[in-house]
Structure formats: structure tokens, C-alpha cells
């Protein structure tokens, strides 16, 4: 069992938790993820690592409620325990193994969308701690759904906000802001790292392709075990089938077949929606008399 040391509600449906997991904290690196199983009945849910502290022995995760298991997880409080917390999984971000002198000469732009802001944070922080100031765009629907803004401001070179309704920062999509930075403001970037909804990563990658900026994306494919055993996370990159869990989660954004990735991500959407509806109705005291909840 793994103890929740701290819980913070970031938005009504996004939660940040510090989970006591000394072994994972000791081995974790930017770009990696964990698999969490809330209880005996829970799914194995892959979640990117949002922060970690090897000394204190905790790993931070940020969870958005999407299905039954993530809802149960979000309902847990500090002091509660969760059944399983496995990791770190996947390959660390490429820059972690590059020489610092070369990193310090480069200009990084991170593009974070929604809950994707969480995995961007440890990357920007890692660079900041090594004297590399990276620019960061954080996007969300509106000011109320922006997450980790203060944390990000503390480690980013320059922080740009973008909201669909303009309630904070730039009004529009992160791709619009990216275009403004590169085309109007003449900003030069050596590499872009985009993490967020698949559709956002697809359009960021499409834009950076025209600018000729190498771009890394982090995929949140469906997974069961997270160690290469099941192949649920298959994705086509540069015409080859790769496993997100062991070959990724980060890939060259210009090579990923996003349409296939999005389609595969939706594989269980109908079943998940159904399970959630059934649970909601049960919680509201509804009993199906014709067996549709089975």
C-alpha cells in the first residue's frame, strides 16, 4: 500500500497528490510515468510523473477524473492509501542524457495543455536546476482550469498563458500563441516539447514542422501493464509500430501518426462512459429493473 501524503484540488476535476513511494522517487526522471491502481477492483491507470523528491521519498501525480478508477482515486484524501504505485516507467526525456553545455546553448519551448501541464513541470524544473531557462506556454479552457501556474512560473524562463476565452493571458489556442511568438515576435526556438491532449500535440507538431523546429510529444496511450507486455499502447511512429510504454512515452512529434493514436485512445470510450453512467445512476439510488446495468 502507498500512502497519500498530500492532496490538493487544482480544479473541480483535477487533483494533485504526493504519494509515498521511495523506490520510485529514487529512480524517477523527467518524462517518465507511473501506473496506479487505487484498490483491488481498480484499473491500472498510467499517469505521468508531475514531480518527485528522492530525499523525502514521494512522487507527485496529477489526476483528472475520466472514468470510474480515476474518480475513486480523486476521492482519496491525504492519509489514505492506494493499492499500487509502480514505476518509473518509460524512457526519460532525451535531454536528460545530453551534455549540459549543449543544453545551455539551446532555446527550449514547452507547450503544455490542460492536465498535460503536470508532466511538463518536472522537465522545466530539471532544466532550471541545471541553469537552462526554458520558455513555457500553458494553455487551458479558461483561467479557472489553468493548473500549476505559480509552480511553473518559479522554474520557467518566460511563462505564457493561453485560454480559449481570454480570461487569462492570450485569448485562443496554444497553437495561436506559438504562431504569434515565432512568426510575429520572431522568437527562435531550437526544440519544442508539447504535452497535452492528442489533438493539441497534433496541431503543435504540424505548426513546428513548417517552422522546422524539432518537436517531442508525450503520448498518453491506453495501457494495461506498462512494461511492454500487452501492446495496447501500440502507436505508429515514422511508419513503424512502437510501444508507448517502453519505446516512449516521448516520440518525435513529426513522425507520430496522431489520427491513429487518437482513434486507438478512444477504443474503450463507449465502455468507460457506460460504466461511469451506471455508477452515477447507482449512486443516485437508481436501480435498473431491466438489467441494463449488467
Amino acid at each position: 500500500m502507498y500512502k497519500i501524503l498530500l492532496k490538493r484540488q487544482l480544479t473541480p476535476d483535477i487533483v494533485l497528490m504526493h504519494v509515498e513511494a521511495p523506490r520510485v522517487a529514487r529512480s524517477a526522471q523527467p518524462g517518465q510515468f507511473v501506473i496506479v491502481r487505487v484498490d483491488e477492483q481498480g484499473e491500472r491507470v498510467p499517469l505521468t510523473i508531475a514531480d518527485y523528491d528522492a530525499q523525502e521519498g514521494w512522487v507527485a501525480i496529477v489526476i483528472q477524473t475520466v472514468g470510474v478508477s480515476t474518480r475513486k482515486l480523486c476521492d482519496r484524501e491525504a492519509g489514505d492509501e492506494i493499492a499500487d504505485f509502480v514505476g518509473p516507467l518509460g524512457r526519460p526525456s532525451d535531454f536528460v542524457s545530453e551534455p549540459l553545455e549543449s543544453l545551455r546553448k539551446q532555446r527550449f519551448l514547452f507547450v503544455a495543455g490542460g492536465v498535460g501541464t503536470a508532466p511538463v513541470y518536472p522537465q522545466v524544473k530539471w532544466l532550471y536546476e541545471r541553469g537552462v531557462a526554458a520558455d513555457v506556454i500553458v494553455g487551458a479552457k479558461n483561467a479557472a482550469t489553468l493548473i500549476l501556474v505559480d509552480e511553473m512560473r518559479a522554474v520557467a524562463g518566460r511563462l505564457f498563458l493561453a485560454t480559449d476565452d481570454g480570461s487569462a493571458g492570450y485569448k485562443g489556442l496554444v497553437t495561436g500563441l506559438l504562431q504569434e511568438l515565432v512568426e510575429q515576435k520572431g522568437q527562435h526556438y531550437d526544440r519544442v516539447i508539447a504535452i497535452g491532449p492528442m489533438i493539441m500535440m497534433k496541431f503543435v507538431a504540424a505548426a513546428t514542422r513548417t517552422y522546422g523546429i524539432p518537436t517531442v510529444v508525450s503520448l498518453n496511450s491506453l495501457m494495461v501493464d506498462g512494461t511492454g507486455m500487452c501492446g495496447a499502447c501500440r502507436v505508429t511512429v515514422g511508419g513503424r509500430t512502437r510501444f508507448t510504454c517502453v519505446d516512449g512515452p516521448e516520440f518525435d512529434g513529426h513522425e507520430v501518426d496522431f489520427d491513429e493514436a487518437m482513434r486507438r485512445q478512444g477504443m474503450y470510450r463507449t465502455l468507460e462512459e457506460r460504466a461511469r453512467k451506471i455508477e452515477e445512476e447507482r449512486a443516485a439510488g437508481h436501480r435498473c429493473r431491466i438489467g441494463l446495468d449488467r
Partner: protein
Amino acid sequence: MANKIPRVPVREQDPLKRASNFEEVCYGYDEQEARLEATRCLDCKKPRCVEHCPVSVHIPDFIREVAAGRFAEAASVIAADSLLPSICGRVCPQETQCEGACILGVKGEPVAIGKLERFVGDWQLKQGGEKPTIAPSNGQRVAVIGSGPAGLACAADLARMGYGVKIFEALHKPGGVLVYGIPEFRLPKERVVAPEIEKVKALGVEIETDTIAGRTLTIDSLLDEEGFGAVFIASGAGLPQFMGIPGENLNGVVSANEFLTRVNLMRAFDETYDTPVFVGRRTVVVGGGNVAMDAVRTARRLGAEATIVYRRSEAELPARVEEVHHAREEGIQFRMLTNPVEVLGDEKGWVRGVRCVAMELGEPDASGRRSPVPLVGSEFEIPCEQVIMALGTSPNPLIASTTEGLETGRKGCIAADEWGQTSREGVFAGGDAVTGAATVILAMGAGRKAAQAIDRYLSAKR
């Protein structure tokens, strides 16, 4: 003198009934049936069954005890060579091992050695709780990677010799392939697998789940930082293979590993569990091994009209004969000499069928089996909503790629000698991680041999 009666039939769950539940198919012998079947053994002077058992269980000796009703004695005869009789009795390919060599099989039916072994194993599990004998601690510690048959066997033997043993398991439940791979209806988890694991824990073996060697920790960190004198790698062969044909990434194409893990480990068939599993109205399983049979019969139980597609003929099916027989009884369709060339999708990217080609058998290949050759112009379609690939598995490269100096061979298998010694001092390996996907009994045998080798290595250091 041997009793010249026909083989005692074993009671099984009705095929129509079991095709929609996950209860065990075979009920096994009761005491009378077992004793009667045991009387058929000729007690050969040179027992061929023993020669053909990968771990040389003293088969006629234990059968003699069963016939006499001395079941505890039978159990201790088996225990000298095998640690997991209730499991091996269920999943060993007896027809190519002990029973295949039984002299009674020449003219009639061989002695039901597997069913008798299972009877003894189950009898022993039911008695439970006898205190295991453990040597006093010798102060040395061994780490075992993986809690499947090889890891459990190695850990148990080392613990009995007085070593402090800790098993590291990547998944949340111990048991490896016994838990995530083999279905409930063939190997019950609570009744058979869990007690076998408890027996190993009762010897003092610790199991740390949720710990992935090569990620959470490394072989070197175990040796250098955690104070283990030796490591035994028994991480299995977990990586699924795909065919590399067009359409393989369509929604509805899954590996047998994924399908079975969702159902067996994550219990997707039980509505109180959160993990979903997609099942087609019609499901095609590609492959002819035990995993293919497990997948197709699982799909059937979840409501699919389920078909096996296999590129060779029935004679070459690598699955256990009993599994093929059970699958047929349950209404599984078999399309032999058929090979998929493309998975077909609908406009939304979901599977709508498989395009296949008919095959004929040509010259024998390196494995001695006649290799299938496609018949030109024979393409046809099988409509379905799901395709499950059961084409075999290979070892996970996670450990080899994070352990300097650990050599690998064909298909990423860890290179080790017959005693499990790898290219690294103090590092041993065995089971599917070394051989590629094989059988439970071979893995168990490899684990036990490695335990002896580890003991030799560590006692020299004392």
C-alpha cells in the same frame, strides 16, 4: 499386477454450460477414481515416463502410493522433484512427456499421470498447514526477479537451504504467467495458485510486488546497494509478437497477452472490477498454441462466436491435446491451413474482418515441422469484429538493457548455461527469460537447478 481396465474417465463440467462461465473445466479424480486409475500402472522396470519428464518425477513410485491410498507418501515422492504438482498436473503437455511415453499408450490409453499428479497436489493443498522444514539462516541473501514458476521454485529451494530470499514482482499480484496468462477455467487462482504461493511464503520468502527490475531498481543496485549475494532472473517471456501485416493497429486487434491480462489479472469478466475488455460478436484468434486456445475459449466465454485461424494443419497444433479437445467441445471453430494477410477495417477504423490465404504444407523446416506455403489466388475474407494475435512471446529487454555485461542471444533471451549461470558473476537466469516461451515444468526445473548453482556459488564465499 496391473489392472487391465480402460483409463478411468475424469469428470468435467458440461461443455455447453462451461462455455459461458469461468469455473474450472475439469473436476479431477476423487480418491476412489485416483486409486483405481493408479492400479493401471505397469510399474515398468525402466520407466519411460520418468525419462520423458523434464524434472524426472519418480512417477511409478508415486502412483504405487496412490494405489495404496497413501497420499501423503505420494506427495513426498513428487515433492522430491516437483514443487507445483497441482499446477503441473493441470498445465503440463503430458501427451508429449510422461503419458506420451507410457507403454500402455502403444495399444491403448496411457495411465492418466497428469490427472493423478493433480489429484495428489490437490489432496496435499487440502491438508494444508504442515510446518515446512527450513534450515537455520546462513546469513546470505538472494534476490529473485519474477514470481512465476521459475522464480517461485528457485526461491523455495534457496529458502529451504537457509538463504534469505526476496522476490521482486513487476505486477501487483505474484504468480507471473500462472496469474496473468493461464485462465481461471484451466488453473483456478484462489484454489490452486494462491495456496502454492502461500507455501513458498511460509518458507520465509518475501515477495515485493510493484517493483520492476530495470526500472524501479536494477540488478546492480540489488548486488551493490541492497546486500544481495546473488540474483536469479526469472522475468519470463512477456513481449507479444505481431504479424506485421496491414491493419494490425486497427481498433479491435489485440495481443493475446493484453486480452488474457485484462481478463485473468484484471478480472474484466467480473462486473465488480473496473477494467474493461472489448470482445467482438465474432472473434478470430490467430495461432495454435496453448495461449491461442486460452484466448479463444476466453472470448467464447465472454459471448463471442470464436474461431482459431492457424497456418499449419491440426497435426501441428502446438497446444495441449486436451485444450484443443475442450475448445472443440465448447463450440470453437477451427480454420486450419489458413493465414491472415491483412486485417480489414471499417470507415471508423474498427476491425470488420481478416483477409486470409489458404496454405499447404511443404518441406519440413528447422523445427522439423512441415512449413506452410501460401496457395496462390486462394484469398478469402472472414468477417469479425476482433482479432487476437497469439503468435508467441519473447523476453522483455528491460533487464538486459539496464544490466551491463549481461549477454543475450536469440530473440533477446538471456544467455545462460544449463545451471543458469549468465555472463555476469553472481547473476543467474532461468525459465522463459532464457529459453523463450516454454512450459511451466521446464521453468520450474530451471529454477531448481539455478538454486543449486547459486548455493554452490554462495557457499564457496562463506
